Each structure stands twice: as C-alpha cells, then as structure tokens.
C-alpha cells in the first residue's frame, strides 16, 4: 500500500471500520504522520457529534445500577506523569499511536479483554501487565516493546489481511488476521516460523480472524507462514501457505 493510500484510511480508522490487521498497519503509519493523527482527532470529534445526536432518554434505574457498581471497579492510575505545558504537542505525537494501538486489538482479543499498556516505560507496562492473563500479558509486552515492528500481507483466496508484530529484543512475535477464507469443518489455521525454509510449528488459530501470540522464540526465523491443517495441527505443513510474511 502506498503512503497516499495509507493516508486515506484516516476516515475508516476513526469510524472503527478497519480490520485488526489493517488497523495495526495504519497505526504504524500514524507514528510517523502527525498530520494523520490530527485528522484522526478531528474525525473522532466529528463522529462524536453524530453519536451525540443519537442520544436517547435513559431510565432512572440505570443510573442507580451504574453508580452502585462504582465501588466494585478499581480506577487505574494516570498513564503518564504530567509534563510541562510547552511539551504538549510533542507528547501528543509520541503517545497517540501507542494509545491507539489498543483499539486494533480490542476486536481481535474480545470484549473486556486486553487493556494494552501504552506507557513507554517498560517498568510500568510490566507492573500493570501482571494483572492480565498470560497470553494477553505477553502480547501487551510485545506491543509496547520499543523495537516492536510490523509487516502485513494479503491472504490467498480472499480479501483477508494478516499482520505479524514482532520484537527482536523480546524474541517473540504476534499474529493478527482478519477475513481469511472460512475454514472447512475439522480444519484449523496453523502458524509456522520459517527457519530458512524449514517450518517450525508456532501455534493454531481455529478462526478466520483473531490474534495469537506465536508459541516459541523467534530464534532467527526469517518469517511466518500460515497453512490450513487438520484440527489439532500437523508436525509439518501439509499444504501451500495462504500467506507468508517476512521479518524484513
């Protein structure tokens, strides 16, 4: 996708109309595009006006229900320390993409699932991540790694998009996919690390869309492949990959 193409995704992104994989790719772009971040902020405000205009009367007992639940919900600490006012613009540019990245994953991982820690300080990220379940914990670590990188590709046989996120320093990779071809009963998508031509099993994804932390270390793998395998997976790929992504 060219830079101009990516830029036009601001509208679909603000309307939460991107698939997780494309969302991740767009946010990678956002990091280097302050103009896009500004446009996204304006579109978000614009769509909020549509939302406001949809207001409906709220039953009084609903408020009581919400208010009485407050005591059961622990409030989170501020994400960043207050900086001097003069640094605001820079902070917006720095923190926006990480903040936004959580939005891509909310869909992939499921409602109420992943509270991705956006803070850049690894200590805080880890402290808060300990409260998460293990898989989510590790994906969050991966996403907040300073050297996290992504690459995306189209999936054969459909309109799906797959994205791999990896961190050389953490030595792990995560896989996000959406809209891969529907699986036949009794089959699953299986992920593989490409060890220079030898495929090493990296986990199963039994759905056409979703997110998965790959099992096993990167260990010098040159990329990630996905094949369709019998449910339960195979020791070696039995068919051609539907997508191959290179850690380039």
């Amino acid at each position: 996708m060219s830079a101009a193409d990516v830029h036009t995704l601001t509208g679909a992104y603000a309307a939460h109309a991107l698939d997780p994989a494309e969302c991740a790719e767009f946010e990678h772009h956002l990091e280097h595009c302050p103009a896009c971040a500004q446009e996204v902020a304006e579109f978000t405000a614009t769509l909020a006006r549509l939302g406001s205009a949809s207001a409906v009367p709220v039953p009084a007992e609903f408020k009581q229900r919400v208010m009485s639940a407050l005591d059961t919900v622990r409030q989170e600490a501020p994400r960043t320390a207050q900086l001097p006012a003069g640094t605001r613009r820079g902070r917006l540019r720095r923190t926006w993409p990480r903040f936004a990245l959580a939005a891509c994953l909310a869909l992939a991982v499921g409602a109420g699932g992943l509270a991705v820690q956006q803070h850049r300080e690894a200590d805080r990220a880890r402290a808060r991540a300990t409260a998460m379940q293990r898989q989510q914990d590790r994906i969050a670590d991966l996403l907040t790694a300073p050297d996290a990188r992504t690459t995306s590709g189209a999936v054969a046989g459909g309109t799906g998009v797959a994205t791999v996120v990896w961190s050389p320093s953490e030595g792990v990779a995560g896989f996000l996919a959406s809209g891969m071809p529907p699986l036949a009963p009794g089959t699953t998508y299986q992920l593989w690390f490409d060890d220079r031509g030898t495929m090493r099993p990296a986990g199963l994804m039994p759905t056409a869309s979703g997110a998965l932390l790959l099992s096993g270390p990167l260990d010098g793998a040159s990329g990630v492949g996905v094949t369709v395998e019998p449910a339960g997976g195979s020791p070696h790929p039995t068919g051609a990959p539907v997508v191959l992504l290179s850690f380039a």
Partner: protein
Amino acid sequence: MSAVVHLSGPGRPGPDLKELLGRVALGDQNAFGKLYDAVAGPVLGLVRRVLRDPAQSEEVAQEVLLEVWRKAAHYRPERGEVMAWVLTIAHRRAVDRVRAAQAAADREQRIAAASHAPAYDEVAEQVEGRLEREQVRRCLTGLTEVQRESLTLAYFRGFTYPEVAQLLGIPLGTVKTRMRDGLIRLRDCLGVGV
C-alpha cells in the same frame, strides 16, 4: 420511567466536563454522577443505534460508563473533548460486541439484510427535533449519497469498510476515500476543531 436527555451542542451551556472528569479521576463519585448525566444519553443512544437490542445495549452502555470511571485518569484534554473521548469508547465497545456476536455466516446474512434497509433513512428519521440533531441532519444531507451511506453503515451499523464496499457494490479504494471525504465535509459543516 423518568428520563432526561442531555445534548452537548455548540453554544449550549453545561457542566465543564473536563473539570468533572478530573475530579472523577480522583475517585469523586459525586462528580461521576454529574458526568453521567451529561454523557449517559448519548452513550446509550449510540450503543443502541449500533446494537439494536435494548437489553444488550444497556449492558454495553454500563460497561462503557464503568470504563470511563476506570480510565478517567487516562483522558488527555489536548487530544479532544470529553464527549468525544467517551463516545469513542462507546463506539468501540458497541462495534466489538456486534462483530463478536456475528459468526461468519450470520454476517453474510446481516450484510444481505442491511442492503435492503439503508442506514441513512433511519438516521434521518430519528435525528430530529433538537437543534443539534437538526444541524447533524442538515450536514449529513449535504454529503453525496455514497459518502453518507459509507459513513452511516460503518458508524451506525458497525460494518468494516470492506463490508461497506460489498454492500454498496463499489471498490474498496472508493469506500476509503468517500469515508474520508465525507468526514472532511461533515467536519467543516459542523465546525469541528480540535
């Protein structure tokens, strides 16, 4: 049922939501009650617009409001208004719910069903009365049909843009640019600045 609708439109005096949210971040439940009064109607309305099902909508709206309580300290004023922040959370959760609830097969049916019921007609019908609603309606009317359909199918129905392309029978790239063009026109018509 006693009920109140609050709309925050331009020029409408109301509580300072930023100040309220600042107090909410410190655990002030009284402040949260006031913030609730300002945002609950829009939150429930938006969630219901996307989800349709009243019971599920209340459940999701409650999750949204509790997320506002939980994450109040994460709000950054320089990124935008409180209402936009809250409604972004609401929209995200509503869309997540509608997509999670749809197996691939259901989704095809949903697309088929939606193609017989343009989202905009319903919007035009419901968005009536108040000044704010009138303005939003007028600005929506100012969009081209494809811009309007693309935006309302995505925002009010929770369709991804490839699904919107399928629904409207137009290329993916066209949907992307129409959504953006439509938002630019809406933004300017509504006088939105950040």
